[in-house]
């Protein structure tokens, strides 16, 4: 499988992806074989249906949004480059990456980018704020019908009230960062890709 994958994947392409995402060569070929196995249409791109076949995503209340995160605005297909770019958010932060000079452009798997990825999952209308309505939608997906609407509303209110520091009744990205300051995002939002 690996040989097939690397046959289809050009070396220079791998190099570019490596530069962009920080994945190693073998990781890229391995993920490429995963990509091709997901690609039921065999046209070199993945559609939403392809993603929905993954049980973890199918079950996840936020699965649709995660899938959406793979697709550029207004597009229905994602190629391998885009696939890898999204996955790069979940690459674990390695020790030698931590103390790089800060002037360099932030890698995709930095804490901020990980958080931004998570933030976008909740920020449906992409206005860089999580509003009460957006929270309510998420809540409904997560707890279903077990809690009354009224209670859901108050949960959303309480959440905003906790997180909101500038009084606009929305959660901005900075407030989001602040809320999750104590959460070990680097570890929680990392996938151990095989080397």
């Amino acid at each position: 499988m690996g040989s097939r994958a690397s046959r289809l994947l050009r070396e220079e392409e791998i190099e570019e992806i490596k530069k962009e995402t920080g994945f190693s060569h073998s990781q890229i070929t391995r993920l490429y074989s995963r990509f091709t196995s997901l690609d039921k249409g065999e046209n070199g791109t993945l559609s939403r249906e392809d993603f929905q076949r993954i049980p973890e995503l199918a079950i996840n209340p936020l699965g649709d949004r995660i899938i959406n995160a793979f697709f550029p605005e207004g597009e229905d297909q994602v190629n391998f480059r885009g696939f890898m770019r999204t996955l790069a958010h979940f690459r674990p932060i390695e020790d030698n990456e931590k103390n790089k000079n800060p002037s360099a452009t932030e890698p995709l798997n930095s804490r901020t980018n990980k958080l931004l990825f998570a933030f976008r999952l909740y920020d449906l209308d992409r206005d860089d704020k999580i509003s009460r309505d957006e929270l309510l939608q998420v809540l409904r997906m997560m707890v279903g019908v077990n809690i009354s609407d009224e209670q859901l509303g108050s949960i959303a209110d309480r959440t905003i009230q906790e997180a909101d520091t500038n009084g606009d009744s929305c959660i901005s990205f900075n407030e989001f960062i602040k809320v999750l300051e104590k959460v070990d995002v680097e570890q929680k939002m990392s996938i151990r890709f095989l080397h």
Partner: protein
Amino acid sequence: MPPKRKNDAIIQAEDVGMEVDATLDSGSEDEARRRSKNRRAKAQRKTKQVSDDEDDEEDEDEAPRKRGRRKRTKPQDSDQDDEEDKRRVRQKGAKAPRRKAANEERDEESEEDQGKRKKGGRAPSKQEKEDQNKEKKGNVKGKDETNKGSEKDKKKKNGKQSSSPASSSEDESEDESDEESMSEGEIAALKEQVEEKKKLIATLRNKPWRMKRRLVLLKEAQEFVEKFEGALGKGRGKKLYAFKVMMTKVLMGLPYGSIPRKTVPRSEQDTAMDFSVLFDFGVRILGYCKYSILFYGYYNNERNIGVLKFRLPLSYLLTGVGIFGYSLMVVIRTMARNANEGGDGGDEGEFTFSWKMFTSWDYLIGNPETADNKYASITTSFKESIVDEKENQKDENIHLQRFLRILANIMILCCLGGSGYLIYFVVKRSQDFAKMDPASLTWFQKNEVEFVMSLLGLVCPPLFETIAELEDYHPRIALKWQLGRIFALFLGNLYTFLFALFDEVNDKLETEQELKNATEWAIHEYNANYSSYYNTTDVPPLVVNPADAVRGPCWETAVGIEFVKLIVSDMQVTFLTILIGDFARAIIVRFLNYCWCWDLEAGFPSYAEFDISGNVLGLIFNQGMIWMGAFYAPGLVGLNVLRLLTSMYFQCWAVMACNVPHERVFKASRSNNFYMGLLLLVLFLSLLPVVYTIMTLPPSFDCGPFSGQDRMYDVVMETITQDLPAFIGTIFTYATNPGLIMPAVLLMVLAIYYLNTVSKGYQQANLDLKKKMKMARDEEKNRRNNKDSTNQVMKDLEDLLPNKSLIPPPTEEEPPHDIVIEKGGKYTKMKPGSAGKGVNLQKEVSLAATNPRGPVAHPPRARGGPPGHLRGPLPGPGRGRGRGAPPRT
């Protein structure tokens, strides 16, 4: 190899001895020569043969010299090779041409060199000749030799046997003639061979031989090493051997049946193997178990056992005490670690809802059922938080509540007392039963104690839960109360049981004393009678079959038996509860649901929940029983391991098959130290009775490792005075002097007091800091709100800008570290006035204009509220909580 060889080799060798060996050799050589007449020896073979020669001659020398030689080059096997060859030749004529040639030549040479060699010197010239091939050959020969050795040994053991499996190998040698020569001082040589074999095994890979040969040699070598290592006292084999000795001789001392304490008494022998007696209802442990290593009584009081001078009594005591020490250490260390881990979570409650909202889903869930459980768990956790919030602002009739709580506690105390009394009563009664004839007792009477204890354990917890409803605590607190009460119940029962047991022990001690006196008197009488009858002072000891010996009640074993019974009945109850309470219930609910008037699954019986806290408590309690019982029944530990293993798999199955997740989300991480605290308490409480018995009760005189001592700890004293150097004894006397112990205890108390004060101080400082941080945060929030709202014009302007979402975060959103820097100064300065000011401003603004960026569905009222209002954990009423939902449009 076939019997033929055996005939000529073994028999001659054994019967005739060394000289015959030589003759045999020559004879066979002749034969071989005859057969190999036509064959020419090649160069390589020649060298080989030379060495063979030498060996041959050596053989004729005395055995010791041979041995010495062997050490150097080990070629003497080659003569064995030769013989073997010749034999093989007999069987398969074409097999070993080279050997035959070698034999031939050797014969010629041997005569010349004989005298030289007899002196044990080796001709240097020959050695030179051999040099090239020698190493290689040496190895081969070594191998052969060892083969031969192994073979020989086999013969020694069995008398008859087949040759080594590697007869296909060229160099293989089986020399029976050598056999008898190795019989006596052989061990050194054998050792050497073993070493060689080992070396061979290590280097075999590098040898330039064919694979088949290598394999064969390897196999042989390994077999040989394995076989002889043990006998020779080296490596693993020796350890195994020593272990066996230890197990049979050292640890157990004398085997079963040798002395009374290890023998089933005659009166019980006919029923001992009867299974119903062995394990009547699984708990009636009489029969052989009672006199097995499972129980204290089996162990002997011999001070040193075996060559290793294993001090069984001392080890027994130290192990018993050491278990407690180790357990204490582990529990306390774990608690300390948990406490450290929990230390930094100061912000709990600050972002409860946000964290639940953003981080509760487990993204690795791929199984629909697990996902359902996760949904349920998230829901309950949200519900819990809502309840928390409600709890915080609830102020009801405090007097009524207090009254109810006191009432509930009184009721529960009554339950506890009642159950304690019940157990005491039952244990007392069981002692009366024990004095009666067992045949006249019913099953219930025999197992009353265990039955009642298990029943109480089943009935009381639900009762407590019902009573706890009165108290109306927050669920998490209520859970802890509930656990604490169940715990008290268990422990109370256990202790009542113990006290009743102590009564019994005292009874037994009395009867034991009587018995001891009677026995001593009887022996005295016997001696007196004997000496007067035979008129001699040299009285032979009274010989009694161990099974018939008079024996005391051995209270230690009795206590051990009680604990084993408890554990076994506890296990039975667990299994039965799971089978009936979970499995049967699940089946009924599942299948009767098709034809029932109401929904069984959602309605009344429903499925059983898996009660994590109850199970953890059960484990703790079980551990306590082990701690208490292990001293009297060492086998209890093993029994319990079995029990835990089985119950783990059984419960695992039950959980997966017939339980639903607990409705209350159970946060193990937060309650960790609660359980560890319970465990520590149990440990302490189970330590008490054991230490008490060790220090005060006299051990039984005729059973157990401490028999004959006044107190169990006398063993330690004895060791100190007898086996350790005198100065250690002196040190020990000083150390145990009350004058030293009292100050030490005082010092420890003071140290504890000091450390406690320090930790309290740190805690206070921590709290203060947290408070400060919180206030600073609120302050910051207010300040920003003010800025935000005062800059209305700016904001309007911003809103006019196109593509709003691309604007970098507005100016008021400074990076977090700025806040931290500002915090200190501003906080102290602004404190008095700013709050009020903030409120006014905020109100004005929110009245003046709705923030255009606010979400449509969310009127400003639901926003942070009056900023000046110190936002504690409880927000003001009517703001987005369950009861006061914000008006929606």
